[in-house]
């Protein structure tokens, strides 16, 4: 099996980390090697966050090489567009349609681009929009959008459903497990 490369990107505070944890745990249960990592710190304060995740028989580097990403999971449309060039032509880009203003837009120093869809059209990979924040709201908490995105991604990997469900259960606090389970399920439905 070739190494599969994932990038999860979004805004600090959106739970990019949790989604990558779910993915990593699921891959481990499948007996695969996993490496990946993210940068946090200042980025947690509403800045851009990118998490790399790589799955395969033996993985050395935790970082995805440029242009070799198989799955880009964008938690926010602008961040999806910012990272779209990492994706292979044969890759898939899943993105949440819910906008989060960058501070530069909130401060009136820049405009949120209205033509993101056209911008994304330039990239040859397949694209799928997921109304993840709305679905999370439906599941009970807008903050569960990360579980929705994990659910949407799960549709495209051949891991058994139980493996995913276990990974979710092991990754989220018991208090919010039900909401996250439901969010994952809604994402899995929407991700096809």
């Amino acid at each position: 099996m070739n190494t599969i490369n994932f990038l999860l990107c979004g805004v600090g505070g959106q739970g990019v980390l949790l989604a990558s944890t779910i993915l990593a745990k699921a891959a481990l249960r499948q007996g695969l090697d996993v490496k990946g990592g993210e940068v946090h710190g200042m980025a947690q304060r509403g800045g851009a966050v990118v998490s790399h995740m790589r799955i395969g028989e033996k993985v050395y580097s935790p970082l995805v090489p440029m242009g070799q990403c198989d799955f880009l999971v964008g938690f926010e449309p602008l961040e999806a567009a910012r990272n779209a060039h990492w994706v292979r032509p044969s890759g898939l880009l899943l993105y949440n349609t819910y906008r989060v203003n960058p501070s530069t837009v909130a401060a009136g120093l820049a405009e949120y681009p209205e033509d993101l869809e056209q911008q994304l059209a330039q990239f040859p990979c397949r694209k799928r929009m997921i109304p993840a924040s709305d679905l999370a709201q439906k599941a009970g908490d807008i903050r569960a959008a990360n579980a929705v995105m994990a659910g949407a991604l799960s549709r495209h990997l051949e891991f058994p459903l139980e493996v995913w469900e276990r990974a979710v259960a092991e990754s989220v606090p018991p208090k919010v497990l039900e909401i996250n389970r439901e969010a994952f399920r809604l994402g899995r439905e929407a991700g096809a």
Partner: protein
Amino acid sequence: MKEVLLGNEAIARGAWEAGVTFAAAYPGTPSTEILQNIKADYSKDIYCQWSPNEKTALEVAVGAAIAGARSLACMKHVGVNVAADPLFTAVYTGIRGGLVLVSADDPYLHSSQNEQDNRNYAKFSKIPMLEPSDSQEAKDFLKAAFEISEQFDTPVLFRTTTRINHSKGVVEVGSREERPKPTDLPRDVKKYTMLPGFARPKHPVIEEKLAKLKEYGVTSPLNRVEMGDTSLGIITSGISYAYAKEAVPGASFLKLGLTYPLPEALIRDFAQHVDRVVVVEELDPFLEEQVRLLGVEVSHGKDLFPIVGELEPGVVLEKLAGVKTAVPAAAAGLPTRPPVMCPGCSHRGVFHVLKKLKVFVSGDIGCYTLGALPPFNAMHACLCMGGSITMAHGISKVMAGSTDPLNRTVAVIGDSTFFHSGITGLIDMIWNGGNSVVMIQDNRITAMTGGQQTPGTGQTLMGAEAPQIDIEKLVLTLGVKPANVRVVNAYDLKQVETVLKEELSKPEPSVVITKDPCVLNYRIKDRPMKVDPEACTACKQCLQVSCIALSMQGQGDERKASIDPNFCTGCTVCSQVCKFDAIQQA
């Protein structure tokens, strides 16, 4: 059993498996999660604490090691500068229980103020250094570090980088090595008391240890030869190994885990078996220079790989294998997304006022450093932890003759940073007759690193109750005049402005304290605010507070300010800025 662990989780696990019973740290990205994981998963067996700064963290760990416990001190790279004083002498005293100092370096400064390569500390302080290259090694090498520490009676530097600390990988976990609890406290004055007469004979002993460690490294499994195609021999360590191994898996590798002192014989032998030697490493030519000094010819090192910033796997692939992946151009013209103060953050209003007052703001390290970014642009210098007050003092001394109020200085510092090393700066200022205004923004937590306890929060890392150090009383005791110690509400912009103006007009030091807690850590959320579209004139004044809950929505005449209720915490700062009363509680 196998688990997916973050590098920092693996280090915490390694400490537990090694039988560590004492751990201390000051939070700093990318090192923070090590102690947080020790607290969360192993505090039954390991006593752990946040210390006010890295120097005290290392000193308490030295004490614990002298008492016989395996002890861990953790910090980010710049923290080692603060701890350098005890470090350089702990090498002289040696230890009793093992002592490991984790230095988490941050190439590319993802969240730091400089890009120093702390491998240089190993050489400078004459301390052995281990460098893991993934989570599994982070755990295994930490155990090895304790063994080396005890075998050679020396502290050990455990050097990681952001990509190790914050990378996840599969780790085979093991069980804990139970070690007997020390029952006696032997007196050994000559070993632990560094008077010149006792310290002088120690230096040759340290040199002998380093010579022995060189030998040790030749056969230690920490250093590994992976022979492949002998036309290319790569010497590397840490995360660079991962990039190089992926780029040219068939080449020959000398993968170093013990990177100071270097195993000379092993390097010479490896070089003899390959046609050419290439050193792959991030930042400084630390390995390259030492290898060259052995007389071993290095065909490539820093002439190929950058001395600045993180190594990028694509660059390693290109330089080693000549493979260049075609990458389409990134989408152009997208707005950047820099970090920003959280919606409802108590620092926001203060920076709005500071900007208005146009004074020189000397800043410190923490969330409030974001006050330097647009639209505030209200911080004019920021050097290091605790440097705000002392820099302001220096500036105010030089500008003493000026009568222009714009030449007055305000130092801005958080509670955790004040306890870290701001307090000594304040003593300096009071003692030497300074006249700056010091704003201590006490948000009751170490916010930037994710919300760790401070000496002011009344709780320790392990959850025990502690006396709350009262900053107000403390600064009074230090000698700030009672009339010059003011407590203000950070959300009341008028009050902040009035008080700051009053204190700026005084010829002596003042301390203005805010006590409003970090919204993120205390999950503060009042009813969100709402913009009345009738009253909003689209003047964009509210946007000047730089809150991501706010934006302009709609086209043409319909364009009005708007607040996303999912983000707004109802802090009212934007409504105080609006001249048309267009923002009200929903």
